[in-house]
Every structure is written in structure tokens, then in C-alpha cells.
């Protein structure tokens, strides 16, 4: 409990700066706002940490600049350390780089977007909050029966696997943005594949929903569903704690800041391509 309290305080400091910030608290959907007063924040944070599989995420910048902010969210903050994306809170450490930690789900080559999110669910509109959640619950439901372990349990909305490991040409097929969105909404932080189809990769970066990381070797053949893994983004490294092996990943490069910013719009606002909103 003590550790938990320390963590909450650390997070609260960061939250307190951002009022009206859109948060993705188990989801990535942007328009869920959370309470602004300190005591409400405490209560809210308690609820947050009480939930299993909670992933803390660095709050995304406000979409509506109607309220003032104490500080430009993009300037480096000397006070608080940069928060970690935590999955299972097994090792609730905060580091200075972005790391993902959790159990992985392994798939094969050529996982096309129909398997990631079958066409019958495309009537759900990703920019609609309730439908965004529903999309997440159908992530990878199109995988054939040869995949004995389900990605999401029948009555669940989220997955327990925060990392997907794939082979070649992950995300091939349709251009449906519902594919990376469904994965992100389900709770996936990153996909590590040997290679990607271009539209899927592009959509992942544009939405900022998941990190599409590339491995140097066929990790999908050396990892099993349920293995505990850690991805260290800054070091471009994946560690499989279950097998004890480490793998080098290709650096995410310039796509990293875009995904971290929350997608191309947030990133484009930074460079002044889009005027900041006034509403």
C-alpha cells in the first residue's frame, strides 16, 4: 500500500497541472476528462490503481485550449520524472525512458486487417467514444481457430496482452484505420513485428494508438503467448523475461515523437501547420 501511495502522489503531480486534459485511462479515447480538484483527483487515482491492467499514460495535450494551463505541456518538466507506461504494475518502477512491460500475444505472418478487425464491425465509428470501446473488444477476433488462446476473453472489453508479437507483413490488406485503433482501444501498447504493411504502419503513427516496432529477427518464433516481456523504447530492446532472451529492435526513429505526441495532428500543431484551436 505504501508503494502504491507513493506512486499515486507522483502521478497526481503531473495530472494536477493539466486541467481539461483528455486522458486515456484504460483506453486511449481522448474526450474522457477527469476531475480537476485535488481531492477528486485522489479519489479518482485510487480508482485508477485499483483496476487491474491499468496503464498509466502520459496525458495527451488538451484539444481545446479554452482553459489556461499552468505550463506548456511540451516543455520538459524539471520537477517530475517522465512517467512510465506500466502495464501489469509487476515492477512499478518509474524510469526516464518509455518502457512497456506486460505479457505478449504471438501471431504469425501476414496478419491482415480482416483478422485484426473483421469487416462486420466496421459500422462502429472510431471517433465516437462508446463505439471506440466496442471496437477494442473485437480486436483480433478474426484470427482463425488455430489460435487456441483468445486475445480477449469473451465477456471482456480489454485484453491482458499489452504487447503483440508478429511476423512479416503485419497489418496487410485493407486501409481500415479501425485496425490499429481496435488494438489500441483493447489496451495494446506496442506491436513488434518483422515488417509491416504500409497503410497499417502509417495509420498507427497517424493515430498514435500503438507503437509499430520492428524486430531484427523472427521474434515470433522465439516467443510464446503469455511470455512476460519488457520493451525499452530508448534502447530499442525487447527482453523476454520468461525465456531470458534479449532482442534488438529497429529504432522507431522519427515516428516516435509523432506517436508520443498523440498522432500527426498533435505533432502538426507543434510545428504550426494547424492553428491551435480556439473554441
Amino acid at each position, binding site marked *: 500500500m505504501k508503494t502504491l501511495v507513493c506512486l499515486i502522489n507522483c502521478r497526481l503531480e503531473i495530472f494536477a497541472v493539466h486541467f481539461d486534459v483528455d486522458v486515456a485511462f484504460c483506453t486511449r479515447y*481522448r474526450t474522457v476528462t477527469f476531475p480537476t480538484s485535488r481531492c477528486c483527483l485522489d479519489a479518482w487515482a485510487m480508482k485508477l490503481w485499483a483496476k487491474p491492467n491499468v496503464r498509466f499514460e502520459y496525458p495527451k495535450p488538451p*484539444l481545446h485550449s479554452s482553459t489556461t494551463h499552468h505550463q506548456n505541456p511540451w516543455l520538459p518538466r524539471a520537477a517530475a520524472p517522465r512517467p512510465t507506461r506500466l502495464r501489469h504494475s509487476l515492477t512499478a518502477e518509474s524510469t526516464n525512458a518509455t518502457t512497456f512491460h506486460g505479457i505478449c500475444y504471438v501471431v504469425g505472418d*501476414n496478419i*491482415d486487417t*480482416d*483478422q485484426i478487425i*473483421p*469487416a*462486420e464491425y*466496421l*459500422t*462502429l*465509428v*472510431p*471517433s*465516437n467514444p462508446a463505439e471506440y470501446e466496442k471496437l477494442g473488444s473485437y480486436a483480433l477476433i*478474426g*484470427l*482463425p*481457430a488455430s489460435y487456441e488462446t483468445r486475445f480477449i476473453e469473451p465477456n471482456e472489453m480489454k485484453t491482458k496482452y499489452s504487447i503483440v508479437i508478429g511476423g*512479416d*507483413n503485419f497489418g*496487410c*490488406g*485493407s*486501409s*481500415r*484505420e*479501425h485496425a490499429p485503433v481496435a488494438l489500441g482501444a483493447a489496451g495494446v501498447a506496442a506491436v513488434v513485428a*518483422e*515488417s*509491416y*504493411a*504500409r*497503410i497499417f*504502419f*502509417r*495509420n498507427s*503513427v*497517424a*493515430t498514435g494508438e500503438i507503437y509499430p516496432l*520492428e524486430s531484427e529477427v523472427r521474434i515470433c518464433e522465439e516467443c510464446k503467448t503469455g511470455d512476460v516481456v519488457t520493451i525499452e523504447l530508448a534502447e530499442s530492446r525487447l527482453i523476454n523475461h520468461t525465456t531470458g532472451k534479449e532482442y534488438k529492435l*529497429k*529504432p522507431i*526513429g*522519427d*515516428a516516435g515523437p*509523432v506517436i508520443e505526441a498523440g*498522432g*500527426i*495532428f498533435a505533432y*502538426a500543431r507543434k*510545428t504550426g*501547420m*494547424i492553428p491551435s*484551436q*480556439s*473554441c
Partner: protein
Amino acid sequence: MASSSSFIANKKDLGLSALSSTSSPFSIPKCRKSISKKIVSVMAPQQSERKPATTGSVKIAMTMTEKILARASEKPQLSPGENVWVNVDTLMTHDVCGPGSIGIFKREFGDNAKVWDREKIVIIPDHYIFTTDERANRNVDILRDFCLEQNIKYFYDIKDLSNFKVNPDYKGVCHIALAQEGHCRPGEVLLGTDSHTCTAGAFGQFATGIGNTDAGFVLGTGKLLLKVPPTLRFVMDGEMPDYLLAKDLILQIIGEISVSGATYKSMEFVGTTVESLNMEERMTLCNMVVEAGGKNGVVPADSTTFKYLEDKTSVPYEPVYSDEQARFLSEYRFDISKLEPLVAKPHSPDNRALARECKDVKIDRVYIGSCTGGKTEDFMAAAKVFLASGKKVKVPTFLVPATQKVWMDVYSLPVPGSGGKTCSQIFEEAGCDTPANPSCGACLGGPKDTYARMNEPMVCVSTTNRNFPGRMGHKEGQIYLASPYTAAASALTGYVTDPREFL
């Protein structure tokens, strides 16, 4: 304007420069199957990114795709690997991705924002139309509300779902509608929220698929950041045998280079065979470029293109062509006379096999439709086979014309050699299902009540574009992709059949 520094940099995406880091400079990264190239490419030397203007260098020859993107980004010169902001000439969206793109547009630009150009956006409901699914119907309403609010010039609306003919604006499948309504023009940049947007490359333009977020961005700004792809050249010479169609050509190519063989690359189709193809056949060729992972496909514009466009558009256009000395990543040559009718077996478009070698595969149904195989020429081809046979089909045969125009052609155009019969008459005599409402139909499954959707595991020969598990509805469904000739021949025997049995 952002500089041309790497935006979405992905090591694999570096195209040319990434190649030098693999063992063989002539291999295409990640392509596992052996490539039977007769002519090996000229590969551009690895260069660091530098603006040509700054070097004062000699003008470098460019490929068609590079030229189109150079003009669209207002740059004199471009090389593969450069990231450039491109001015978009036309943006297309439909009922599946439109609402999401609109949602993002409003969220990011504001509820009262206006689109960048009300005349450059084409909104085409086509995917889930003839269904009782409430959300699907609501999505068309969302499109309508947006078009009214923004005064969008081109919205091919449908209100009365019980009878498509009473909807004068409704067209059908977006990629065919774009062509038929004159929105595809040589030299332009067309983006669409659908992977098969690459179909429009048949008109000698840069056309590719994008997601909702990118589309939302284009709606507001009229621009998008794109990376210039290197080009793979496919040279097809020789007279097209009368048992082959463009579908066989593209299945041959995809089988050759695999489903990731053209990832992040442009595919250029040239040669006397390509020149002999009509526009709809060229569209079939470019349609499945995405199935090889391709970014876009192009066919140089020629008299066939200009003739097709004559009565469809009065907007001036300027075609571009690859320079003599342009550098291609690889060049493939095919001797068309040696090719035979093909199928793509389950469950991948690159699982190529000769149709005649699958003659023992019993099938349960045949589906003729979609942007790939549901155009007027495709139905004419199927009718030709039924006519030649004179017999009835042995399995349920579903016909889904892509657009209203195609539907009308099926009911009015005489089939050569039939003594004046129309396709519809021939289909009826052969025992096919009545041609259905024009839309994407069951190509991608769709809501459960979609016509011809595969709701139980069965074997289907289809003129569509993908056969991954679950594509047409049921995960255990087996889909054999084929040309309209092969599909019709298969319907007549109840087994996968080479059309030469009848032609």
C-alpha cells in the same frame, strides 16, 4: 511548411538506402520467394538526402510516380525516400471510413471548420448499403449531414434502400464511380480512405489508400505528407490470349513477388500487352497492387485513356511519363503467350496456382462482383463463357454489378456473338442469380444480412481481391480468387475450371 526531413522514418521504408544494408543489392527486402527476373535493375546509388536545388546538380531522370509527386509538391526534382507535402487533387471517402474521418476533422479543426475545397471531395456510399443494420444506415446519414453542412459538390447519395434505381445520385462502388464520373485524371493525386484507391492509377495518376486520420488531415488542409516510393517496373509484351484477362496478369505478378513484394513501392505497368488493355482491364490490374503491398500502381496514359475521359470530364489535365533514363528498383518481364489462367488459393492472394491444376476442387458457389471483377467488361467476359457453353450453372452464381451504370450495361448492352442478347439474358438462361443491387456486396463480408455473404464454411470462386481467412464472412470459408472467365467456367462445372474448357 515543414522541411523535408524524415517524418515517418522507418528503416525498412528507406527503400533504396535500406537495400545496401542487406546482403544482395538486387534482392527486394523481405521477399522470400525467389524472383525470376530476367532483367536486373539499375539501382540508384545510396545518397544522403539533399535538395537538388542546393547542389545545382544535373537534372535526374524521374519515374512517372516521382514526377507526379514532384509536381504535386511543387518541387522540381524528387528522389525515392524523400518526404514531401503533397497538394491533393481529389479526396474520396465512403460510408465505412467517412464518418470516422469526419469525426476526426471536426475534433481537430473544430465543429465549425470548413473543408479545404468543397469541389475536391467525393463522398461515395458503397460498402454497407442494402442492409437493415442500423449503424450502417446511420453512417450514410452522417455522410449526408456533413455534405449538406459543407455543401460538398459530389455526394452520391442513396435514401431509398428498397430500390436503388429511384436514387438518381447513387452510383455504387467508389473506385468504379470515380472513374465513371470523370474524377480520375492523368498526372493528378487522388487519395481515398480505401486500400483499393490504387485502382485509379490506371489513369496515369498517383492514387493510394489512407486511413481516417490522414483523411481528416486532408479534409482540413488539402495536403498530406507522403514519402516518395521507388518504382518496380512490370513489362508485359505480346498479344493477350483470348482466355486470359487482366486479373490473370496481376495474379501472376502477385504470385511472383508475394504479398509484401511491393511494400512501400510503386508498380508501373508498361508494354504492348498493357497498351492493348481497355480502361476497365487496366483498372483491374492496378486494383490489386495493394495485394502485393504496393503503395500505388500506374499505367501511362495514352489514346485509350483520353478517349475514355472525353465524355466524362472537362477539367484540364496533363499526363506525365517516366523518363527514358529513369531508375527503377527492379524490372520484371513477362512473356504473356506463356501465361495460363490462374487462381489464388485460400488463404492468400499470392497463393498462386494454375486453374487447370485445381480442377478437382469442388466448389459451393461463385461470386462475380466488386471493384476488381464487377465492372461492365467483367460481366461481358463472364457472359461470353456462358454463351460459349450454352449450359446451366451447377452452383449458385451471384452477380453484383459495381455501379448503377454497370447494372444498366448488363441489362442493355448486346454481347458480341450472341445475336443481340444482353448479359442479363445470358445470365438468366444460364441459371445465375438475378444481378443484385450495385455495391461492394459480399466482397468483404459486411453486416450479416449482406447479399451473398458467406455465413457458413464453403468453397467459393470469386472475382474479388482478397481471400484471407474470414474475408467474405466465415472464418473457415475458402475463397479462390479468379478472373471472370475462370469464375464463369467454374460455375458451369461445379469445380475450379480453366476457361479454355469453354472458350
